[in-house]
C-alpha cells in the first residue's frame, strides 16, 4: 500500500529549502542587534539620567569677598543658605585638591597656586521638584554672580536622545518585518508560479482557498521560524561579546574578573530573543496567506 502523501503541492521542492531561511536569519540577526541596541541605550540613558538629574553645581565667584549683607564671606553665606533651602541635600565645597584635579587638564597640577581668580565650587544633590530654577536668583541676592547648574537639563537631552534612538530602533524593526514579509511573499509567488498547474488541478478537485493557502502558510511558517531561530542564535555570541564590552558602563559595575557576559544581558533581551522566531513565523504565515489568497482570486 502506498504511504499517505502529506504534501500534495510538493512544497518541499517548490519553496526553496535554504534561501528563505537564510535571508530570514539575516533579518532576525539584524532585529536582535537592533533590539539589543535599543535596550542598551535605554538602560544607559536611565542610569545616566538618574545620576545627572540630581546633581547640582554652584560656582561662587570671589568666594573670600564679603557677602551682600557684609556678614560673612560669600562662600560661607552661600553654603549657609544652601543648607536651609528645601530640596537641597548635602552641599559640600570642593576641596583645593579636588579643584586642582578638576582643572589639571587645562591649568596644570596646581591651579590654585597660579593666583587666578578662581570661583569656589559647591556640589549638592537636588531632591526638589523641577530643575531648581529658583536657586540661582536666591544665591545671587547673597553673592552676586553666583551660578547654579542643574543636571536636569542634561537629563532632558538624554531623554530626548533615548526617545529618538528608540524610534529609530522601532523603525528598523518595522523595516525588517516588512522586508521579511516581502521575502516570504516573493518566495510564495515563486512557489505558486512553479506549482501553477498543480494548484489549478487541486482547485478544480474542490480544494478550498483556505486549504491551499494553509499548505503554503504552514511551509512558510516552518521556514521563517527556522531562519529566525538561527539568526537569533547567531546573534547571541555577538550580543554576549558586546555585553562584555559594555560591562564597565553598567551600574553597578561588576567586580573585576567577574566576566560572565551571560549575566550582563538584560532580562528584556533574554525575553525578546525567543520572540523573534515567533514573530517571524507570524509574519511568514500572514504573508503567505495573503499572497496565496490574492493569487487564487484570479482563478474562477
Amino acid at each position: 500500500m502506498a504511504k499517505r502523501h502529506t504534501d500534495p503541492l510538493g512544497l518541499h521542492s517548490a519553496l526553496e529549502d535554504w534561501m528563505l531561511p537564510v535571508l530570514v536569519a539575516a533579518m532576525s540577526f539584524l532585529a536582535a542587534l537592533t533590539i539589543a541596541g535599543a535596550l542598551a541605550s535605554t538602560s544607559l540613558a536611565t542610569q545616566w539620567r538618574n545620576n545627572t538629574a540630581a546633581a547640582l553645581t554652584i560656582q561662587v565667584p570671589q568666594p573670600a569677598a564679603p557677602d551682600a549683607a557684609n556678614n560673612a564671606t560669600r562662600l560661607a553665606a552661600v553654603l549657609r543658605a544652601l543648607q536651609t533651602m528645601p530640596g537641597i541635600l548635602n552641599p559640600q565645597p570642593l576641596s583645593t585638591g579636588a579643584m586642582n584635579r578638576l582643572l589639571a587638564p587645562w591649568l596644570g597640577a596646581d591651579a590654585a597656586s597660579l593666583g587666578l581668580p578662581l570661583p569656589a565650587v559647591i556640589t549638592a544633590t537636588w531632591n526638589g521638584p523641577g530643575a531648581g530654577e529658583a536657586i540661582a536668583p536666591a544665591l545671587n541676592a547673597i553673592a552676586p554672580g553666583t551660578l547654579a547648574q542643574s543636571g536636569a537639563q542634561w537629563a532632558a537631552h538624554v531623554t530626548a536622545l533615548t526617545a529618538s534612538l528608540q524610534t529609530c530602533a522601532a523603525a528598523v524593526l518595522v523595516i525588517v518585518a516588512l522586508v521579511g514579509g516581502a521575502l516570504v511573499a516573493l518566495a510564495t509567488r515563486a512557489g505558486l508560479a512553479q506549482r501553477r498547474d498543480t494548484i489549478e488541478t487541486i482547485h478544480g478537485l474542490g480544494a478550498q482557498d483556505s486549504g491551499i493557502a494553509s499548505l503554503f502558510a504552514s511551509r512558510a511558517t516552518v521556514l521563517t521560524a527556522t531562519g529566525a531561530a538561527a539568526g537569533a542564535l547567531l546573534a547571541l555570541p555577538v550580543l554576549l561579546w558586546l555585553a562584555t564590552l559594555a560591562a564597565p558602563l553598567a551600574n553597578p559595575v561588576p567586580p573585576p574578573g567577574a566576566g560572565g557576559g551571560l549575566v550582563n544581558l538584560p532580562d528584556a533581551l533574554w525575553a525578546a530573543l525567543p520572540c523573534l522566531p515567533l514573530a517571524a513565523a507570524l509574519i511568514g504565515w500572514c504573508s503567505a496567506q495573503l499572497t496565496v489568497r490574492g493569487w487564487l482570486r484570479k482563478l474562477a
Partner: protein
Amino acid sequence: MIKFDDVWLKYRHQERRPGALTRDVLRGISFQVPDGGFRWLTGPSGAGKTSLLKLIYLAEHPTQGRIDIMGTHAAKISRRDAALLRRRIGVVYQDFRLLPHLSAYDNVALPMRLARRNESQIQADVTEILRWVGLAGRLAALPDELSGGEQQRVAIARAVVGRPKLLVADEPTGNLDDEQAQRLMTLITALNRLGTTVVVATHNHALVNAYPAPRLEMAEGRLTAHG
C-alpha cells in the same frame, strides 16, 4: 441538472495585452441536461468543446449568460460553496493533470482527501477503482513511470472515485486501446445508470455510435445541434 442560457465566453489575455479579452470562444450557448442524463459533446478541434466543459466544471466564468449546475446559479455562488460543488463534479482532463510528485494511489485518493473522507474508506475505494481500471499493480508508481494510457486511466479513476453527481470528461479515450475504451465506457454508463449526469467530449465517432445518446454538437463556438 445542467442549464446553459445564452452563454457567451471570452478569455482574458495573460501575456500579450494582459486583461484584454479574446474573441468570443462561445457564442449564445443554450441547452439543458437533466439529472442523470448523458450527452456526447462533439465537434471539430477549436469548436469550443473544452471551453464549454470548463464552464460546466466551474473553471471559468461566462462573460455573459447564466449557468446553473446541480440547481446552483454558478455566478451567485461563493468561492467556498463553489469548492464544495466542485467536489461533486468528477473531471477527466484532456491532459490528465496528474500531480507529478504523487503516486497513482495518492493522485486517485486526492479528491477524497480534499473531501475529508476517512482513510479506511479511501483505501478501499481507491484500491478498488485502480483495480477496476487495470492498475492494481501500479499503486505506488509516479505519473512519469506510467504510459500515456495508464496515466489516462489514473485520471479517470480520480474523476470517478468519489462517485460524483456530475461527470465531465474531455477526450477520455484518446490514449486508450479499444479494450480499455470499452471498459471505461462500461464504467461511465454504470455510473450514469446509478444517477450520475455525464457529459463526454470526444472525436471518436465509433464510440459515439457504439453508445447512442443525445449529442451536443459544436462548431465555431456555437451549438449547431442539440438532442
